[in-house]
């Protein structure tokens, strides 16, 4: 494996991470680090463990019955799996956006954005209107929905729903943003808009994005990790991975010989 020499600016460091579903091991001894203000793209064929990997970064993996992991994940040098750490607080610091847009169907657009704040009881202490406006603007959705904040979030188009989910993730002010194939359910125009948004967001966050679209990875990321069968085959600067991959398998994948 190449390219793990970036640890010094790491926001999140992954050390010897392995993961299982029941008896079935799906991640094998992963080491990587996520840099602040960079976009890290995770690519690889279906079923290789991309989702499992990023779900280990905010302890979502453990919400699946029968799932377990080994190894360490450091957020600012603190192990998030230490027993004294509350997974709930970790998830607040490391936000997540999913493949399929999943706004809360029973809530309005406004309520969706502030759902995270309401849960933690912070809603009373802050100006919700301000936050909703800021987050929707950050998510490039404000102009389209500002007149119908009270309508249900499920009434939006797929791309708008995904941006709503991003706004919702931003509202709790995370430090790291994980995105699991956020564009795969979207049309080209919506994809374009989300990509622009990621470009904006990376000024403030460390972003990890899973994608099956190689072009997208090369367009938006600084770092790329290539997974195959649960192993991190290659991890390093995007430009280098896409031009001079260090591993034959990476090359095969990138040139479309499979997947």
């Amino acid at each position: 494996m190449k390219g793990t020499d970036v640890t010094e600016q790491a926001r999140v460091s992954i050390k010897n991470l392995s993961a299982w579903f029941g008896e079935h091991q799906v991640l094998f001894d992963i080491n990587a680090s996520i840099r602040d203000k960079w976009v890290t793209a995770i690519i690889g064929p279906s079923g290789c463990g991309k989702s499992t990997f990023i779900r280990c970064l905010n302890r979502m993996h453990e919400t699946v019955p029968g799932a377990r992991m080994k190894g360490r994940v450091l957020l600012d040098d603190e192990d998030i799996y230490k027993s004294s750490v509350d997974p709930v607080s970790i998830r607040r610091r490391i936000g997540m956006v999913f493949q399929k847009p999943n706004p809360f169907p029973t809530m309005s657009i406004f309520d969706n954005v502030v759902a995270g704040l309401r849960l933690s009881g912070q809603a009373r202490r802050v100006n919700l209107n301000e936050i909703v406006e800021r987050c929707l603007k950050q998510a490039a959705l404000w102009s389209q929905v500002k007149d119908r904040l009270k309508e249900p979030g499920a009434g939006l188009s797929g791309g708008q729903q995904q941006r709503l989910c991003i706004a919702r993730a931003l509202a709790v002010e995370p430090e790291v943003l994980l995105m699991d194939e956020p564009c795969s359910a979207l049309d080209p125009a919506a994809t374009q808009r989300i990509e622009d948004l990621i470009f904006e967001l990376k000024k403030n966050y460390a972003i990890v994005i899973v994608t099956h679209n190689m072009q997208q990875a090369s367009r938006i990321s600084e770092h790329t990790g290539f997974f195959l069968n649960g192993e991190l085959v290659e991890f390093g600067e995007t430009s280098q991975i896409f031009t001079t991959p260090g591993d034959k398998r990476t090359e095969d994948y990138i040139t479309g010989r499979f997947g």
Partner: protein
Amino acid sequence: MMDQAKGQSRARKIKARLFYLACLSAIIISLGALAVLLTDMFIRGFGSLSLSFLTSFPSRFPAKAGIKSAIFGTIWMMSLTALFCIPIGISTAIFLEEYTGNSRLAAFIKINISNLAGVPSIVYGFLGLAVFVRALSFNRSVLSGSLTLALLVMPIVIVSSQEAIRVVPRALREASYALGGTRWQTIRRVVLPSSFPGIVTGVILALSRAIGETAPLIMIGALTFIAFVPDGPFSEFTALPIQIFNWVPRPQAGFHQVAAAGVLVLLGIIFFMNGIASIIRNRFERH
């Protein structure tokens, strides 16, 4: 900001804990009620449970009383009920899910079914009395009883079959259409086999409901001393819940034990039916 993000406040944690405890006590109460009921029935009824209890006719002496006629009556009645409600229920479900789409007719039938599901069982007793016992002159026969119960549990069969049919993935239907299957062939070969476990569950649920029903049978006049086994659909009959209801109000304490033993038998039958259902379910779901 870091402070807020520090995690859940104490209050949130306590609330979550209390909520968990509330849910836990709910389930404990539910199971506790079950335990109390079953234990009570066992203590009362187990002593009376014997082979001769199963093979004797009712008697005025608790020690001699048995449930032969009730068991046969229940078997007769359940068979006929199944015979009526399964084909009609499943057909209706197929019609609603596969043939009508969102037509007015479908909406009307659906409203009807959801209403019928909420109609008290005793009201079906009026129906059975007026239509089957009197208008059609089936008297208080097994046939009248099972027709009444079939109508009573029909909504359960329809709704659960509808649900089972609905969750068959569209991809499977498309596969069949793409192979040149017609609508009925697709239903027959693909949709019904896939929804079979769900349909069986619904049918068992419906029959378990029917088997314990008392009020509508009382309405059609089935509360009767019967010391023979039904010999056809037009024969008079008694059934387990009826026999239990017949015994419970008696002055002799012995009958209360016999009644409890009857309940144990009834529960045993329900258990058995549910067991069969789950075997069928597991068998098919593994595929």
